[in-house]
């Protein structure tokens, strides 16, 4: 791999989700030069894929895309997408040596206009990861319609090397000779905004995810409710039927010692209540039942939002789902403990949504050399002074923003990023002890 020295920046922001964007914009607006490194093809994180946000039901993309565009266009921000930070080494105060690998997307970013001509002629289809596998995409593809940069990429592992994309590209942007390039840089502070992972429900086989096609995750339902939805309406993936009796299983993979994740996701109650309301808008005849342990409606406007869902007719059943079985017609039988009556009951639904929990995304800790970026007992980035200075980490000069430090919702992630960028700015000026 070729190595290039690419100079210096004031701040390195690792992760281009809502927290990283906010932190980068704050620092850039103060006049600091920021490098943002995002491992995916586009910035926007998880938020850019959501339908609406709770408890206001504002369009998620409409809130996040102005920030995404501002990051991409800001004169003080350099953006590396499809790139990974491989090494961070602190060599002194306000002096970090960083290695970043820029992976090849086989498309010249500066030339691609996002016209999709390549996508139209590409003969290959594989699962579209940005629609959570509900539909296919091509091997050369614009990641999603509101991606930034809106530039095609070639999934070389699934490419049949037919060369059609290169033949039709009007901009001459396809370049199969691209190779990964390692860059070395120096930065003066680092903000870790690497977000979280969603719980994989394959780890709870008794819920049938992966075996029963009408058991889906909350992210798959989120996509079905978004304007850029895969089916153009809400359908169950098993046979394309319009569902009319939908169940939510809250706390799938959270507050559950048996899967090693005893903590609350902070968001699954509210996003499920949000989705239930959106479903009632999309499918006015549908019944929606939410099976829950406790409804945690703790934030501003959350309790009212919960009451609103009840008022709309969403049914709430306090019950723990023991197992899910499938009938021949694709419907699902939920066997559950009805906590109010203490009885074991069964109920039939035609679509089940698993409201999956939030897990740490701790891969980034392995790139720190010399000093250790410590994690807490659930593998989130340890906040050295959780109560008084929540953005501080175990390494002076490295700050944490958003859900990298623990599960949190969007407004809290933005506030956390505000704290991290303020701390970073103070550190850069040298005033902070």
């Amino acid at each position: 791999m070729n190595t290039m020295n690419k100079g210096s920046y004031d701040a390195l922001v690792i992760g281009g989700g809502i927290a990283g964007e906010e932190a980068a914009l704050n620092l850039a607006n103060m006049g600091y030069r920021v490098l943002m490194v995002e491992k995916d093809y586009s910035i926007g994180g998880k938020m850019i894929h959501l339908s609406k946000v709770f408890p206001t039901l504002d369009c998620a993309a409409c809130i996040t895309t102005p920030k995404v565009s501002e990051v991409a266009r800001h004169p003080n921000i350099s953006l590396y997408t499809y790139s990974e930070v491989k090494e961070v080494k602190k060599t002194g105060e306000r002096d970090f040596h960083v290695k970043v690998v820029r992976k090849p997307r086989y498309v010249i970013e500066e030339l691609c206009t996002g016209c999709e001509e390549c996508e139209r002629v590409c003969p290959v289809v594989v699962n579209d990861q940005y629609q959570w596998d509900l539909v296919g995409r091509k091997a050369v593809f614009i990641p999603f319609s509101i991606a930034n940069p809106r530039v095609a990429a070639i999934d070389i592992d699934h490419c049949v090397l037919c060369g059609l994309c290169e033949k039709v590209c009007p901009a001459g942007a396809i370049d199969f000779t691209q190779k990964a390039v390692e860059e070395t840089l120096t930065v003066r502070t680092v903000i870790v905004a690497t977000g979280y992972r969603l719980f994989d429900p394959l780890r709870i086989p008794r819920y049938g995810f992966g075996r029963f096609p009408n058991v889906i995750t909350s992210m798959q339902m989120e996509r079905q409710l978004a304007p850029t939805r895969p089916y153009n309406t809400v359908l169950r993936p098993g046979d394309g039927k319009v569902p009319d009796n939908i169940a939510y299983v809250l706390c799938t993979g959270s507050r559950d010692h048996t899967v090693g994740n005893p903590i609350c996701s902070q968001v699954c109650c509210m996003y499920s209540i949000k989705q239930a309301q959106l479903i009632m808008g999309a499918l006015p005849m549908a019944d929606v039942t939410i099976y829950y342990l406790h409804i945690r409606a703790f934030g501003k406007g959350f309790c009212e939002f919960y009451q609103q869902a009840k008022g709309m007719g969403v049914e709430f059943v306090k019950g723990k789902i023991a197992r899910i079985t499938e009938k021949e017609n694709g419907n699902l039988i939920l066997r559950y403990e009805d906590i109010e009556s203490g009885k074991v009951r069964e109920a039939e639904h035609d679509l089940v949504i698993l409201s999956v929990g939030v897990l740490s995304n701790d891969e980034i800790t392995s790139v720190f050399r010399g000093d250790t970026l410590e994690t807490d007992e659930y593998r989130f980035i340890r906040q050295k002074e959780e109560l008084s200075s929540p953005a501080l980490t175990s390494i002076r000069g490295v700050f944490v923003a958003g859900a990298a430090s623990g599960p949190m919702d969007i407004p809290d992630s933005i506030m956390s990023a505000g704290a991290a960028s303020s701390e970073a700015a103070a550190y850069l000026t040298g005033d902070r002890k």
Partner: protein
Amino acid sequence: MKKERTIDVIKKERKVPEEVRENLKKFNRIKKKILEALQEGPRTVPEIASAVGLSTPDTLWYLMTLLKYGEVKTGEPDEMEEYFTYQLAKKK
């Protein structure tokens, strides 16, 4: 600006895995069958599945992919309003 085709360069370095070739063949086969099944008129996913001899979840996935790339369009719901019908997007 590049002059020669870069595909020829990568072809010397990379081999296309067998399963990637198979995946392409499978898609082409299924696409042909689905489009043939729709030539007789609008059909629901279970109807297409039985005509094509594919499971209903797989049929939906391929059908929605064809919809995304403009080969197929959504039609009216069936009598019970349980399933939408799908039809060819392009007139023959």
